[in-house]
């Protein structure tokens, strides 16, 4: 048998991909956002839903360092050190993520805007997506509205029985133990709600439940929700962003909660990212940041049906 040596993307796709990358860089340069290249090796990701790949012997003490799942930690340290608006365009790695729209190695665009909140950054994400994929109507949709419309359930108010009924109505039959509340919402988002979003539009989904705040600050106007958003195009989740949490005590509490969750689930528990916590102590400027899946964006732009088709 001959080894499968042919790259996924053909020459025409490579040219269009290169044009997309040039458009992204021009878009950000026009807005005065500085390209930075933080190290790809650093501390392991804390969040339980992400697993980092270890590089043995990479640390000064001979221990492992981890391939970044995103450049967030390093970029926030740059922001705290006074870098101003910055972006990263390059690889990130997520262990075990393999599929049509997932890859262990992916291309990420992550950028931070000082003094902007998540709403202003959503405008910028929509403008960038339009610059790469072509103009489409932009739609802003609250997480709760999207769930009411596409899963028939209010994710902020429904009790567990109502959420379980919504799963059944959507034909989602999860094997094994019953899902917790956030896992049930993730099931609805990934199976039913998400695929319905961004059909002919650029859809900005915002107002995520506070329990899924990740690194976003909570919304004072509705404390049931966090200042987090995602962007959907053609049913695909393209980007995830926050009005960033800057309070070091709250950040430490979230890291510790994630460690506890990892311990409970029997996952590897990593040391706290003390460098990031120290940077937050020193003062992270008020900012909004977003990570965007470049391979998916290119796939939408060229009409490809998988990540493999737009990657080398």
């Amino acid at each position, binding site marked *: 048998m001959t080894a499968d040596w042919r790259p996924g993307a053909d020459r025409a796709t490579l040219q269009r991909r290169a044009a997309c990358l040039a458009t992204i860089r021009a878009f950000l340069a026009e807005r005065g956002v500085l390209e930075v290249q933080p190290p790809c090796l650093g501390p392991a990701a804390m969040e339980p*839903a992400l697993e980092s790949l270890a590089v043995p012997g990479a640390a000064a003490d001979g221990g492992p360092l981890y391939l970044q799942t995103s450049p967030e930690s390093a970029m926030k340290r740059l922001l705290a050190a006074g870098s101003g608006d910055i972006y990263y365009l390059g690889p990130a790695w997520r262990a075990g993520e393999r599929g049509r729209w*997932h890859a262990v190695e992916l291309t990420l665009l992550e950028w931070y805007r000082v003094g902007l909140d998540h709403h202003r950054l959503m405008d910028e994400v929509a403008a960038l997506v339009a610059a790469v994929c072509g103009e489409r109507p932009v739609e802003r949709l609250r997480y709760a509205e999207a769930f009411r419309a596409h899963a028939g359930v209010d994710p902020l108010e429904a009790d567990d029985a109502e959420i379980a009924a919504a799963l059944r109505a959507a034909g989602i039959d*999860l094997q094994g133990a019953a899902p917790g509340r956030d896992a049930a919402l*993730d099931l609805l*988002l*990934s199976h039913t709600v998400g695929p319905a979003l961004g059909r002919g539009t650029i859809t900005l989904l915002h107002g995520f439940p506070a329990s*899924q705040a990740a690194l976003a600050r909570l919304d004072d106007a509705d404390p049931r929700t966090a200042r987090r958003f*995602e962007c959907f195009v053609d049913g695909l989740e393209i980007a995830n962003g926050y009005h960033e949490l800057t309070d070091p005590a709250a950040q430490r509490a979230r890291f510790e909660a994630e460690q506890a969750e990892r311990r409970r689930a029997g996952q590897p528990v990593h040391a706290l990212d003390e460098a990031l916590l120290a940077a937050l102590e020193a003062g992270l400027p008020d900012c909004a940041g977003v990570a965007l899946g470049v391979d998916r964006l290119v796939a939408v732009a060229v009409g490809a049906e998988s990540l493999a088709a737009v990657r080398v």
Partner: protein
Amino acid sequence: MATYSTQEFKAGLKIMLDGDPYTIVENEFVKPGKGQGFSRVKLRNLKNNRVVEKTFKSGESVEGADVMEKDLQYIYNDGEFWYFMDPTSFEQKAAPESAVAEAAKWIKEQDLCNVILWEDEPLQVEAPDFVDLQVVETDPGVRGDTSSGGSKPAKLETGASVRVPLFIEEGEVLRIDTRKGEYVGRANK
């Protein structure tokens, strides 16, 4: 029996679910950016061929199904069971009618059939893609009308009925495509 994690899921993998053997038809990894990962799987029940859709939490494991495929020779049926023989070991297997299903229309003694065995028992019998069968009953051929593309029914020695061209006569041996249930041509002598 081996267990498989969702990481190993792929089309064709045979697993157990609620006590029945299934084959994976399609597997898609889905995961919201900041949430849990899941495997969204289409599976075909190997006992009744029904396709179901199930979701597994990423990283969970399931038991593999003890399923294998073998070419066995059909020997006879007694009305209740259909008997097959392994041509190398001469071991015999009895398949219930539910396992033979559609294949019953096409197979005759000594045909080599692909049989799916679950825990060593026949679960599904597939007829060979092409079989040669004799016509036992059909209307007399209509001469001079062979170009019109007309057809007529013909009953074959296994009891199955197929559409054949008008020139085919009783006693002829025909080649049949069992996947389509269609006449292909006269069998090579």
